């Protein structure tokens, strides 16, 4: 497993991968991760207050998300699952849209951002989209050009549970066959809802990549340095036309699968406690303090910023407008189909069938 920063916050070296950034960059990563955690905690709390329908917490997976997102070049595209809040934050996706999505005031009909596709709820389906899109990049001549600035790659985020899906395995086969420029970034958070990783795979996940014919790397998913280093390497390969890579970011879902789940029913406290000792934010804070890159005043400012961010997030819910069903019919096709117009009429009729209660 590739690791460059231990849980205690000590830098270690690795034969193949090295951290090429500065401590200043790492101060930035600390801010990314802190704000991601704040965003996630606030959204979880909003769900508990009845403001969101459901929320999938990213707690504990900040380093995997931030490290990989910060490895992306401007032309690279992200195909996320539904838990990539940290990636969204780093790519400056308007986070209000994510809140709207889980509040149900937004059906995912956003202005598609070039670099960050919609959250995908269907487990693993985004890996197919990512592979197809990556093949498109090849057809468009955006892979393997002499000038690196002309090249692009795709990263598909998925979880350990998704690795058991047929879609995902088919994506692996297609991307290998076509040598598509896609990085499969698997956050192995150990639990597919209540199904432990050990039940799903007899071997470490990254070893599966070999069977599909491309490299697989296991990286400490709670080590932001290692994650970024490994992801940069994999994206570089993709852009150069060297084909797909599988990255297994070994991490842990500290919270529930979603707010509708109760992990205490299927996993032991001891396990969660053990992983709390490997917290990605704690270890980076320890390292940066030791280096003198940050001090108490810096952390206090960060806490203040995070707090303000929290109130801003809370204020969003009041600003979100409930969409009408009618708008949905407008946003599926540029030119509506006859069938959809018929459905719109049927729905309007159905709505008219209600009357005021006594």
């Amino acid at each position, binding site marked *: 497993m590739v690791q460059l920063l231990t849980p205690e916050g000590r830098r270690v070296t690795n034969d193949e991968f090295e951290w090429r950034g500065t401590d200043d960059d790492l101060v930035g990563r600390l801010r990314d991760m802190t704000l991601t955690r704040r965003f996630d*905690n*606030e959204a979880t*709390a909003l*769900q*508990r*207050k*009845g*403001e*969101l*329908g*459901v929320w999938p917490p990213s707690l504990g997976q900040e380093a995997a998300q931030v490290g990989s997102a910060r490895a992306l070049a401007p032309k690279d595209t992200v195909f996320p699952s539904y838990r990539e809040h940290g990636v969204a934050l780093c790519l400056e996706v308007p986070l209000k849209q994510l809140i709207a999505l889980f*509040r*149900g005031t937004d059906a995912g009909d956003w202005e598609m951002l070039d670099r960050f596709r919609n959250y995908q709820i269907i487990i693993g389906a985004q890996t197919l989209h990512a592979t197809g899109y990556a093949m498109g990049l090849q057809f468009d001549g955006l892979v393997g050009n002499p000038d690196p600035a002309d090249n692009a790659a795709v990263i598909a985020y998925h979880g350990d549970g998704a690795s058991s899906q047929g879609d995902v395995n088919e994506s692996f086969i297609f991307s290998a066959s076509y040598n598509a420029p896609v990085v499969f970034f698997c956050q192995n958070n150990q639990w597919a809802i209540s199904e432990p990783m050990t039940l799903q795979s007899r071997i470490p996940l990254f070893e599966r990549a070999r069977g599909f014919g491309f490299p697989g790397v296991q990286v400490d998913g709670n080590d932001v340095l290692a994650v970024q280093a490994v992801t940069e390497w994999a994206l570089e390969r993709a852009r150069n036309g060297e084909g797909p890579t599988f990255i297994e970011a070994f991490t842990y879902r500290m919270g*529930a699968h*979603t*707010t*509708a*789940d*109760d992990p*205490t*029913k*299927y*996993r*032991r*406290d001891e396990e969660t406690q053990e992983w709390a000792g490997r917290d990605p934010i704690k270890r980076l804070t320890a390292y940066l303090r030791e280096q003198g890159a940050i001090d108490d005043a810096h952390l206090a400012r960060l806490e203040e910023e995070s707090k303000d961010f*929290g*109130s801003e997030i*809370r204020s969003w*819910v009041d600003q979100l407008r409930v969409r009408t069903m009618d708008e949905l019919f407008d946003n599926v096709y540029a030119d509506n189909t006859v069938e959809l117009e018929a459905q719109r009429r049927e729905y309007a009729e159905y709505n008219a*069938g*209600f*009357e*005021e*209660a006594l």
Partner: protein
Amino acid sequence: MLRKFLLPDPGEGLVEAEIVAWRVAEGDIVEVNDVLVEIETSKSLVELPSPWAGTIKSLLVAEGTTVEVGAAIIELDDGVAESVETEAPAPNLVGTGPSEAPRSRRRGRRREEPSEVSQAISDSYEPHEPGRRPDEVHPAGEVHAQPVGDPLPTAGKAPTESTLVLASDPTAVRAKPPIRKYAKDLGVDLGTVVGSGPDGTITRADVEAAVAFQRLADEPRQGRIVNDHSTFQRESRQDTFPPGGGYGPFGAGSGFGAGGGAQSDPFNGRQERRVPIRGVRKATAENLVRSVNTHVHVTEWITIDVTPTMDFVEKLKNRREFTGLRISPLLVYAKAICLALARNPDLNTSWDEENQEIVYHPGVNLGVAAATPRGLMVPNIKNADQLSLIELCRAINQLVAVSREGKLQPGDYTGGTFTITNVGVFGVDAGTPIINGNESAIFCMGAIQRRPWVVETNGVEEVVPRSVTTLAIAFDHRIIDGEQGSQFLHDVAEILAEPALALLF
């Protein structure tokens, strides 16, 4: 300004939750996101954070109460001057809270027209209680009585012998695959069943009615008049819902079905109470049904004098090593059972259907049925057979404490190999327990009572008061024959009648 916090839906599509514990008291000052309360839904235990900062004015719901989503549970003063709006309505996001818009409802006309397809689908997949479906078809004979008040449920269609003969061509049968499977599992020939669904489709309720009918037909000596419609209704209901839940590791159900005679309202207008089956109750029921449907239960019992065990317990209580520990006869029972299991390994086994093997467990994970705040749970003591008496005592004490607090973790109640249930604590003589999970036997402790007992001293018999109890063992006859089961029970009884004999084991 006074704010009311309305109970949100903390899961997906839940309708109610129980207030487990308040984390704040009236007068407390809270910040945004401070935890206000812990609630339990049918899915999880959840902490609810405060949407506002301010002072707690009043807790509107007592702990232990179940409230509906959307109900106000706590009032908080946010310190902001009163404005025109006095109460912030909770947003209605998942369709269960109060709506901002005026409530509206469907006109009845539409409601009563489910499409045939959707009706057929729900008929096929919903696990119908036979009686809950409106009786749409083929009354078998004259209906003798008119129901009063709410229509009493009927046992689905009531087939007469003639209807059974009518449809006999199996190729003409219309039934969905799940229903065909269901019928096959129950040994029902669909060719003999008349369907009551759309286009004569056979529904789950039809199959269940056919089973109930078949059972009646097989027992003519009971003197039932099969063609009498009202009799059929009554009898078949009782067949479908046998009275009494039987023994779980604890207690019997009262077993009063919703049926009864159709002649009059037996309760003079008093309303029945209906409680949704879910959570631990549901899991318990499913486990018991699975156990009863797989294990071949046999129960044996023996009544013995356990005065020496009671004396032994008293001795232990006075020993220094046991200071601070609660010692009950359960400790001696548990030890005796571990010793007897070593001599009778057939009772510490599991049936592996898939591999067609009997699994002899390498150790005893001793389950103890416990009434916990979450309901009946059977946590087990891992490797109880390797524990010394003092270690076993500590383990039992800890298990009781953790169970009482409702803090059991999944690992605590999985992996059991043998279970003890104690109905004696309820003052009951003994019981015929149901085997827990995939274990092969369960031991039932009865009440220990002072009773007259014949004691022989130097060839003279006299009746003296002794501490007497009944021990029972239920075991799976697929694995364990009467010989092994009896030997085990005898061994346990021997130790309890004279703990010193444990030295022989």
